[in-house]
């Protein structure tokens, strides 16, 4: 069960780094959670910084052992994480529109409330561990200037803002529910759910085509199971892009 074992730390460099080390030296239970009240060097994607103050954010990593998932199906982990975090935010903010910004940032309206960093350990042809690192802005009242468009649960709930532990409880519930989809290999259901929460789904969006370096427009038609994005251009042409090939202009 996800969240049955929670290792809580006052301060860590990064919950993902600790989880990776922990998983490589021990045999952690599936669903073991590493929780930090504060992260000194929280990491975003491949070295990018994630800033926070003690107990203002949910800073956690969950160690999963997806036994039936194939390496080529790994984007399912991204969908699983984004769906569970988005539903957790919706639980606390039922009146707000909560979106997944492709590939896996969580937005309330057009502001970012959560980021996800997934690091897997692969041995041979299968996953040994999948470390899902999640940061959720919970009680921040102000943010550093360098963050472009941040928002926290406090921005909406003020005095009714839940504690970090309560947010973790709900997130673990959601994860336990949707983990059955992974175990049961219900990947197309997960994909459909992920797609339904996509920011700007069905809308005309601007993007930078990285190969031509030109700004183009297209209707966001969806995301495939491998994570690539599908856009329909003005002349009704369907185009599929990998993450590196495109930059969305939000």
């Amino acid at each position: 069960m996800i969240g049955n074992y929670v290792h809580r730390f006052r301060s860590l460099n990064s919950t993902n780094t600790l989880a990776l080390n922990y998983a490589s030296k021990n045999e952690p239970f599936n669903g073991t959670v590493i929780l930090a009240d504060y992260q000194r060097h929280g990491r975003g994607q491949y070295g990018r910084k994630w800033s926070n103050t003690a107990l203002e954010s949910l800073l956690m990593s969950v160690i999963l052992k997806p036994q039936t998932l194939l390496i080529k199906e790994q984007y399912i982990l991204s969908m699983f994480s984004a769906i569970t975090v988005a539903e957790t935010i919706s639980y606390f903010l039922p009146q707000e529109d909560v979106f997944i910004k492709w590939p896996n940032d969580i937005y309330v309206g057009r502001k970012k409330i959560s980021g996800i960093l997934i690091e897997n350990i692969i041995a041979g042809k299968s996953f040994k561990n999948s470390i899902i690192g999640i940061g959720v802005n919970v009680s921040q009242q102000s943010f550093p200037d360098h963050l472009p468009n941040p928002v926290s649960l406090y921005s909406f709930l003020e005095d009714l803002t839940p504690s970090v532990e309560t947010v973790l409880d709900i997130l673990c519930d959601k994860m336990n529910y949707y983990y059955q989809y992974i175990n049961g290999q219900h990947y197309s259901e997960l994909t459909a759910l992920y797609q339904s929460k996509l920011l700007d789904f069905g809308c005309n969006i601007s993007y930078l085509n990285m190969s031509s370096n030109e700004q183009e427009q297209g209707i966001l038609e969806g995301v495939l199971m491998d994570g690539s994005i599908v856009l329909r251009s003005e002349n009704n042409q369907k185009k599929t892009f990998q993450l590196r090939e495109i930059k969305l202009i939000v």
Partner: protein
Amino acid sequence: MMNFKEIQELIKQINRTNIAEFKIKQQDFEISIRTDKLTKNNKTTEVVHAAPQLIAPSMPQFPQATPPPAAPTPAPAAESKPTVKEEAPAKDDSNYIEIKSPMVGTFYRSSSPDKPAFVKVGDKVDVGSVVCIVEAMKLFNEIESEVSGTIVKVLVEDAQPIEYDQVIYLVDPKG
């Protein structure tokens, strides 16, 4: 005609010397033995190189120390040298184990741009050592080695795209 034991003894004796080629003819029996002693790296101690090539069409059941292509046809002495030279490096590589990419993505040699590489040429790896990261769609995959040995070659540049099953490292299992 020599028997199996005699041929075996002959090979042993030749191997102990510096003889590069040896031929003997008795009536309709002929045997020619070639070693790598003439090639540049005549100091080599590897078993594969030290074993002489035996050309004895009359005794096909004799265990061959080298793969078939060169062995079955008796070659004139002059042609033998280049053959041996070409084979040596190929055999070298075949002793190495390949570490291949389990997926399509971007190859990274270190955990972040300011960190040292997980492994470089000359480093020892064990089963379970992390050798690189392959990133795909913002999922970062630490790839663990399934073999132990010494890294002898790095075949992919840092931050380059990588294909499924593409060879990333060559590992010398004896190193």
